[in-house]
């Protein structure tokens, strides 16, 4: 299943100053869906020119998107803590 929510959390020093941003990725996918459908013929043509199986390409891109789920990146230094999570 593709990720539905992204969370960006930034805490500046002192740690009381912080903001948390929830990005509803499912809305982003819904917004991108019409563009994806419009670009699908172009994508197929490019795949045929490059001699790549378009269905395999779509499946791979989908699995990459789905694989992003549960990604966790946390960087903490003296000035700030940045946390990115994809749920």
């Amino acid at each position, binding site marked *: 299943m593709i990720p539905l929510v992204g969370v960006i959390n930034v805490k500046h020093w002192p740690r009381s100053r912080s903001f948390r941003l929830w990005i509803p990725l499912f809305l982003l996918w819904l917004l991108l869906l019409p563009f994806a459908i419009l670009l699908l013929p172009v994508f197929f043509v490019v795949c045929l020119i490059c001699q790549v199986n378009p269905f395999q390409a779509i499946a791979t891109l989908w699995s*990459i998107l789905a*694989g992003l789920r*549960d990604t966790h990146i946390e960087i903490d230094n003296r000035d700030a803590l940045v946390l990115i999570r994809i749920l």
Partner: protein
Amino acid sequence: MNEHRRQILEMLSQGKITADEAERLIAALDKSAAPPSSAAGPATNATRFKYLRVLVDSDSGRNPHQGPVKVNIRVPMQLLRAGVRLAGLIPPQARDHVNTALRQQGIPFDINQIKPDNLQDLLDHLNDLTIDVDANNKGGYGDEKVKVRVFCE
């Protein structure tokens, strides 16, 4: 029914062994017939580990411009597997270009020989990988210590 099991049942019917003994013998037979856990190999590991973790812990000594930095990254193994599948999408023309560039760099390597199955095997064995780097650099601000850990969990 195999030969050993039949012998045990015959001994039971002849009264040479009790029902308890027969049960224990059959249990022992079943245990020895079960495949060893290591035979499951990488596939078992592949299902056991879900993430690749990268931990970096850096302490820049007494450097006033840079404090300690900690990086904690968790990459799902599923993403790595999907990335590996990208190798199958490299167009043949691009593969030729890559091979030529590799040869020019003195690396006689043919990427056409890399199959997605090979990369899949590589990922499966990545589960056993643990990298620990512990470095000390002496600089103008004293010792800079960096610890890097890469492992699967």
